[in-house]
Structure formats: structure tokens, C-alpha cells
């Protein structure tokens, strides 16, 4: 496992905000009946987090749970734990129709930090990112510029962004341009 590398090896950029490639992040795509008690229990047991509402992410001691669609969650756990969590979920849901897949390696993840993070994202995402409309725990699956992406807010000045691994470098380049010093609209 020591040979595993994230797409940009933790690249960083400091401009109007700070952008960090978040490194390896365990991610599990879980599809199933989100109302099912066994599924909810399995999710909470894996992450310590409650079930999220629509377009929300919840935070637990051992992971996070993101709502992705009416029948899909994304579980974020330690990279090293991902296969084990998939196995646990599969065991717990053995009799339920579901799909649990480790997608950790299929993604790139970035952390955007700074008061201007909202505006950097608003240059590419057709999302109301004003503090009134988007707060901690809110999540969107959307696009950033030409790329499919998802992002959520973890604290008042921090967003986490995920995209496909193959375009991780492109998104990083895009974010660096959008975060150019002195380029924020100062609208939000």
C-alpha cells in the first residue's frame, strides 16, 4: 500500500485561497434503499455519521456520508479502511439488494480553504454559493467549468471537491487560475 499515490501527490497552491490536493481518500459508493434500517445502521456503523438529508453530507468519528442521489451514498473513510468497509457493508447487507464499491482510486480530491473559496467555485459551478444558500454540510453534484464534480463544505472557510482521477490535474490547473490573487469578484 505504500506504493499508492494520489493523482498529484498532494500538490498545493496559494493564491486568493489555499488549494491542496487532499491525497488518498477512501471512498465507497453505496447504492441501495436509503430508507432501509439495516442500510442506515451499516452506514452509521462504518462512519459514525448519521444518514444525510438530500444534498447534504454528515460527519462522524470514522468517516463522512454524502447524499449523491435518491439511491446512492458516498462514504468517506480512511483510504486503508476502504476495502474492509466494503466487506463489512456487503456482509451486513448480504440479504438486501445493494451495491458497495470501492471507488477511492477513481477519484481526485481537493481541499479549498479561505474566505474566497465560495467565489472560486462560483466561477465554475452553477450553484448559489452565498452563505445564505450554502453552508457547512451542504453538498452539490454539479460541474466545475467543463468537469463533472461534487463538493461540500466542512467548515466556514473550507470546501472539499471531488472529480474523476483522470481529470484531477485539469481541475487543479483550473482551480489555480480561478484562485488567482486579486481575481475574486467579492460578491458573495
Amino acid at each position, binding site marked *: *500500500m505504500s*506504493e*499508492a*499515490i*494520489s*493523482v498529484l501527490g498532494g500538490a498545493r497552491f496559494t493564491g486568493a485561497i489555499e488549494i491542496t490536493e487532499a491525497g*488518498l481518500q477512501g471512498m465507497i*459508493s453505496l*447504492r*441501495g434503499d436509503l430508507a432501509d434500517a439495516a442500510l442506515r445502521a451499516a452506514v452509521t456503523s462504518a462512519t459514525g455519521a448519521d444518514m444525510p438529508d438530500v444534498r447534504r453530507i454528515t460527519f462522524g468519528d470514522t468517516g463522512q456520508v454524502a447524499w449523491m442521489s435518491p*439511491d446512492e451514498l458516498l462514504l468517506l473513510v480512511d483510504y486503508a479502511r476502504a476495502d474492509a468497509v466494503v466487506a463489512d457493508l456487503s456482509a451486513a447487507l448480504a440479504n438486501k*439488494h*445493494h*451495491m458497495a*464499491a*470501492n*471507488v*477511492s*482510486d*477513481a*477519484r481526485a480530491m481537493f481541499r479549498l480553504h479561505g474566505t474566497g473559496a465560495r*467565489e472560486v467555485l*462560483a*466561477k*465554475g*459551478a*452553477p*450553484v*448559489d*454559493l*452565498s452563505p*445564505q*444558500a450554502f453552508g457547512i454540510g451542504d453538498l452539490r453534484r454539479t460541474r466545475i*467549468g*467543463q*468537469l463533472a464534480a461534487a463538493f461540500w463544505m466542512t467548515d466556514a472557510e473550507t470546501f472539499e471537491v471531488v472529480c*474523476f*482521477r*483522470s*481529470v484531477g*490535474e*485539469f481541475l487543479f*490547473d*483550473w482551480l489555480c*487560475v*480561478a484562485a*488567482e*490573487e*486579486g*481575481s475574486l*469578484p467579492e*460578491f458573495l
Partner: protein
Amino acid sequence: MTRLASGGLLIDLSETRSFTFNGQRYTAQAGDTLASALLANGQKLVGRSFKYHRPRGIMASGAEEPNALVNMGEGARFEPNQRTTTTEVFDGLMARSQNHWPTLDFDIGAINNRLPRFFPAGFYYKTFMKPRWAWKHLFEPVIRQSAGLGAVPTDPDADHYEYFYAYVDILIVGGGMAGIAAALEAGRAGAKVLLMEQTPHLGGRALVDGVEIDGQAAVDWIEAAKAELETMENVTIRTRMMGSGVFDHSYAMGYERLTDHAPETAGPRHRLWRIRAKRILTATGALERPLAFAGNDLPGVMLASAVRDYATLYGVAAGRRIVVVTNNDDAYRTAITLKQAGLEVPLILDARPQASGSLPEQARALGIRVETGKGIATVKGYKTVKAVGICDQADTGTVLETIPCDIVAMSGGWSPVVHLWSHCGGKLDWNADNAMFAPDPTRPPLGDDGLGFVLSAGTASGELHATAALQNAVQAARQAVEETGFAPVPDTPPMATAPTEEPMQPVWSMPAKAPYKLRAKSWLDFQNDVKVSDIRLAAQEGYESVEHTKRYTTIGMATDQGKLSNVNGLAVLADALNAPIPQVGTTTFRPPYTPISLGAIAGEARGKLFKPTRKSPMDAWHDSNGAVWEPVADWRRPYTYLRDDETVQQAVTREILNTRGGVSMLDASTLGKILVKGPDAAKFLDLIYTNMMSSLKPGKCRYGLMCNENGFLFDDGVVARLSEDTFLCHTTSGGSDRVHAWMEEWLQTEWWDFKVYTANLTEQYAQIAVVGPKARKVLEALGGMDVSSDALPFMGFAEGTLAGIKARAFRISFSGELSYEIAVPAAQGQAFWDKIAAAGAEFGIMPYGTEALHVMRAEKGFIMIGDETDGTVIPQDLNLGWAVSKKKTDFIGKRAMERPFLQRDDRKQLVGLLTENPADVLPDGAHAVEGGKNRYGQENMIGHVTSTYFSPTLGHSIAMALIKGGAGRMGEVLTFPCEGKVIRATVVDPVFYDKEGERQNV
């Protein structure tokens, strides 16, 4: 210098700016526009017209300017057709006039001006007609040489651009008193408001029209209002930002010019705002119309309001002796302003029979001569106004008196700026009192709630008097406040006062009975050189629709989109057709309001951000090891790896021979990988694929085909059954997203009762193919998994670890060789690649690219989606009938395949081709002909080459082709006419190499 002693609200006399025009250095004041600075320096002639190369000067003071466009900047910051009236002067600004040769003062092209009869309405289209040779050899070259405005930039743009997405309750376009009053109402009520103003300052016409608001001078009221708005957190004011367009669902575009006034500043030059607003208020004011009299395009003939603007806002006297010509009271403001500034105003010509309002009376009281019922017959002068000949408006243009002057300030009335109201379908009403189109508030553009989402506010609503305009704006704001869920604050609305005005009188031609000679010099569209005579000719030639007339005469089709010309033009058309103006109607208003930069439209998508390129986990290794890149869908893949001074062909040959003779490795990570899981997964895949998947045993792989509902093949790949209820479906590299979406669509719309989930795991894995007779030895050297033919037979797969990395190894082959495709987690892809390279070193392993892959699959007669398929090919055409189940009751495409057309024997079928000369490689796509001509006189074509290569393995060229009735033509020699020669080739079985398939099954 023509700077006035007083005035100049917007300029700072203590700060100067230096700029050049046509290479000559001039001085401006801070706050000047390029137009005001040129006028301040006495430069009246600023360009040449589009068609006739007539001398042209500055006509307006804002976004509607038709004439005064310049080439701006140089090199990477060069940009043509920049309006001087909306360009702020900065130190070092360089401008050049356009559309003349050799110089602005002496322009050869002005000969066109002597030949107007050769350039009548629609002359361009007429040149297409006859003689037939003339368009190509005479007209087109001449027109191309003489037409056009600015020059084309040659260097890549030095600046960058971006988008910004914003969401507000109420968007207000226009920062005049109406927009400001509306922002106060909405802001106080708590709505989130964005107010945008295209100029650098707020205030609009209230600054120059002598308006008082709540007893204060407008400029003071605006200052106070601005201060209050700036304290509101829910209100944003952006200047230098134009409301560019309004679109469905209350979507608006704002064009913010960040550094045009200060180049070299960091940050983007333009920002395109994409705004979702619950309500949009268009407080866009009104534009003054010119009057159509002979010579109205001479430098020095200006809009009356513009002359006033230059005096009041910039302290610039456009001239010393100004004649005002009008059909309304408003233009008297200009006369009064100029007179009070100490300039000469020898005469006001008023086309109306009488002028008795308070403004005319004030003008008379200042000692200005007012002549009613009079107009201009002709303007004297060539490059600038020298005098006007006055006449009776009701007459044919007999000159009664000639008055020397250097400026003619004209006003033909006002037209509300209805563009944004109209962009998305807001309807207009003809207002006969003011001879203008104004928004019909009962027919606004409708949103998804069935209510209007655009409200006009102020003068833009057609309320031309300040008092009514401000009331209208407040009312519109309160309606928007309520409709967005807020409660209007019950305060006393601001009250504007201004002198009352008497009715205007429409004047579409001056004088009313102007003969042809005068009409042919009376301009309607200044930028495209369209005159009253052109519109009348179009009507005479049968044009009745205003849209057709627009295109025929080109009126309103220039970069100003007819801001000054459209109403005048359609009035002339209506008159010529003897139809009421509202019946003739307007042309369509389309965004953008004024031209916006292509850079802003492109946004950040340029250079390395132009388009995303998907990169495999081993991309960096390929890049530093000689990869020649090939785009494969959105991916880039190594076409081959160059060593030393090899040619591409040599490298491909080396890679093929090394694979066939030893072992090579391929980055196959781009292959699509879709996980399909659930109790109904097998049933689902039986429907998605043409062949049977439910009979596949766990641990085994099967090649499968996917067709659309028309039976046409669109993707293929190997399916591995991971467990009873789980399959992994490989797709083509370009097809993964499409196939995943296809599966989801069927599951979500047709087979929603199936218990199946899918996930696109394409990027979860790095996939590496180890290929060649020595492949097993390499895997054994990696260690960790039994890869013997017993443990892992052909078309089987196994899971375990290889070289300590968790791996799934598939025994599948696209080359016909012993081959393993090994999937490992993408994050360990590079590590695994390195381990294979190291373990394979003793066996001579080397990487190969997509071209070697393609040649080897063609040697084996394997098809490639997109080469052998083109959306009209069914599996049976490709000899793949064996992969179309005859047992299954249904699958997508089954019904279609049973149609007679798809069962005909003479369909184009896949064959192999061997050229007579083994060294001849058929061109890709070459057509086979069978003699004779079709009804179009073309050779009868029986098919085409789909894949063609020189096979290093076999030492001769090979090709595949789709040939009509190909299956029955074995041994036939076909003829392929190619550039310069004819290639003959024999039809053969498309499997050229190892027909029994022994090499892969060892």
C-alpha cells in the same frame, strides 16, 4: 483645445492622461472617454464608413455610437471596432481609425461615395445574379477589399477571462435614477439585489437633464442614494457591467469589463456573469433617434443629447457654433446648456408648427432664435459641418437660408431601450404620442410560474418625463419586491421634478417631401451605410416584411445592431408600404445588447484549460518515455513510444515484432469498466448484449456486443462474471460514459422493476496488458498468483496479488497472443507498471502503443468500434452473427434485426483484402468501384476500406473493408481508384494471422 471653463461632472481636471490617435499624441483628463478626449482635442473626423468610405465623426456619447469605432491597442492587446464613446482613456492608450486607405484624411475607397448607384439596397445579393462569372472574379474580390471595419488581430490575446455564477432576488439593469430608486426600494425591503451599470458611474441622464429629486439636484440625490445602498449588505452595485442578455427561466448575462480602463492590472479582463434572478428590472433608459436629412452623417452632426453630455459630463464643447434641429422639447435642453456655457447657438430648427413649452420659452428668453415648422434641407461641408441650409419641413427642400455652424445637434425623439425586455419574448406596444415602441406590461416574458419575470422600470417603460419615470420605477420595484416574497417598506417614494414638455411630432424624413436626391443622402443606418432611398427601393422591389428588408438592405445589421436606425428605418418602410408602423413591427431583439468579447464567451477555457484531457495513472511515465500522443475520445494514449532516432513507423514495427516474438506491455487503463450487480443482473445483461450472458460461469469472461434498438452495433467488450449476481462489463475506451448512461437509462425508464445497480469503475483501476509468448514468464516472475493455463485458462480470470499488489488478472487477448490484462487499484498503477517492466526486463519487455494494438488486432481480423462500425452496421455484417443469440426471446436490437432490410444478402459485409502489390497500403476509407456510373455521373461504389495497415508480422499490407455482398465475393479482385493510381486487391477472409487461434490459447 475645446474644453469649457466650467462643467465636467465626470472628469478630474487635476489629472491628465496621455494617449495617441493615429500615432499623434494627445492629452485627456482623468474620467474622459476616448470620444470626449478626441472632441476635446478638436478631432471630429474619426473614421470612414463601411460601404461608401464617407468621413464619419462621433455621433453619440454612449453604447449606441455607430460611427466612432477604432482599432485599439497593439500586438497581443489589439482589438478592432472599439467604441470610443464607451472606452475610458488611460495612459498609453493607442487608437487608430478604421476602414480607410491610405489615411483617414485621404481615402481612396471614398470613390465608392461617387458611385452610390452601383451600391443600391441589396447590391450584394444582386452581384450573385449575373453575369455568372462576375461574383467570383470581380465583385467578391472588390467587395472583400473595400468593405469591413477594423483589422483582424494577429496575436494570441494577452488577457484572460472568466465566468461567475450569481443568484439574486432582483437584478436591476441600469444605474440611472430609475435603477437607483428601484434598488433603494428592493434593498430596504430586504431583497438580495444586484444593480449593474454599463458605464463607470451612476446617474444616467438625470445628471444632464436638469432633474431635481426631492428638492435636490439629481447629482446630489444620487450621491446620497448611492451612500445608502452601499450600507446595505443585501445590495451590490457593479459599474462597468452591462446587462447583456435575458434568457429563459429568468437567466441573465452580465458583461463586466474589469481592466479595459486599466490594462496590465492583474486579474481577468472581462467577467461574464451568469445570473439567476427571481425578477429582472430593466431600468435601461432610452436612446435618442437621429433625424433623416441630407448630409446627416457628416462629422459634426451629432445627437442633441450627446452634445449636451459632452458639455455637462466632460466639459467639452463639441463645437463653437451649434445649430439644434428637433421635433421635441428635450433638445432645447441642449441649446440652453450650450448657451449657458458660453457657446453660440444661432438657431433652433423645430419641425413642429409651434413650440410653446417651458423649455422653448426658456431658450427664447436666453435670446436663442427658434424657427418652427422648419428643418434642414442640406448640410454643407465635406469632412466636417460648415453650414446648414434650412427649409420648410412641409416642403421639398428649397433652401430658404444658409446658417454657418460647426455642429448640428439633432433630435428625432426618443426610443426606450427595450432590448432586454424583448430578448426572451416581452412584447411591445406602439406609443403614437411619442412615436416609439415601449414594453407592454401585460405581455412580459413569462417564467415557469406563468408570471412575468422581467419588469421595465423608468424611462425604459416609455415614461419619458422624469416625474412619471421615477414613479414607474418605484412601482416596478415594489411589484418585484412583492413577487419575490418580500414586503415593500411603506416609505414616501422619491419625487422627481423637471420642466413639463409639449408633445413631439414624428418626423421620418426631413423635409417631408424630400426628393430622391436628398433621400439618397439621408442616412438611417450610419454604420452599414443604409439611406432612406435604400429602404424605399426595397419596398419598391417588393419587400414587405421588416425582417426581410433588414437583411436585404442590411439596416440594423452592423455592430451597433441598429440602436439608432431601427425605428427610423421601419417608419420609412411603413410609409413606403403605406402601412401603420405597428403593423410593420420591429425586427427581433437578440442578445448581446452590445458586442461582448469572444474572450468573455470562452471564459477560462483557453490554453491548457481549453478542454479537459483524461490522463491514465501512468501518463507521466509515458510522457517521459517517448510517447507520441493520440487522442482517444477524451483520453490521450501513447500511439507509440519513440526510441533514439526512430521514425514513428519504425517504432510501431518494433513494438509489434517484439510482442509477437517475445513480450510487450500496454496501458489499457482507458477501457471502460462498468460494475453491474443485483439479483436481476444476468437478466439485464441478456437484454443489453446480443449474446447470452446469463450462462456465463463465475470466474469466466465472454466477449459481448451491444446494439441499439435499430440493431446497429455501438459497443463491444469482454464481460467478466465476478459472482453469481455481479458482472464487470468492459467497454471501448470512448464508450464507457455512453454505455453507463445507456444502462442507467434502460434501468430508470423501462426496466425500473429490475433489481440491478450499476457503477462506472473505469477509473478505479489501472489496467495493464502483458502480451506475447513470454507473457506468462513475466507474470511468474512477478509472483503471487498461479497463472498457469490450468489455473487461469483462456477467457478466465483470477483474483489475488501480483508482486504484492492486489490484482485481478484476465486471460483475454486483443492481439491473438498469449495475453493477460491485469487490473490493479489506480493509485498503484505506476508502481505495478514499474514492477512489470523490471520483471520483464530479462524477457525483453517493452511498452507498445495504440497503433501496434490496432495493427495486431487487424492481423487477427478483430473489429474496432468506430472503424468497422459507423452506426449503420449490424453484427452479422461483421461476421459476428455467432455472438447474436438465437435462443434469447429478446434483447435490444433483436426485433430490428429481423427486418428484411437488415437480412438482405447484399448488405455490405466485412471482408479482408490483399493488395496485388504487397507493398501497397490502401488508403483508409478508399472506395471500391465496380464499373459504370450512377445517375449523378459518379462511379458505382460497392464499399469502402475500414482498416488498413502494413503488417510487419506478415510482411505485406492487410486491409478490412465493408463490401456489398462481400461474403459471396471471396477471391474476387476489387478496384480501388486512389489519388493518382488504381489499387487492386483480392477479397479474402479477414483473419490474416493464426486463423485457428492457437497462439492465444496456450
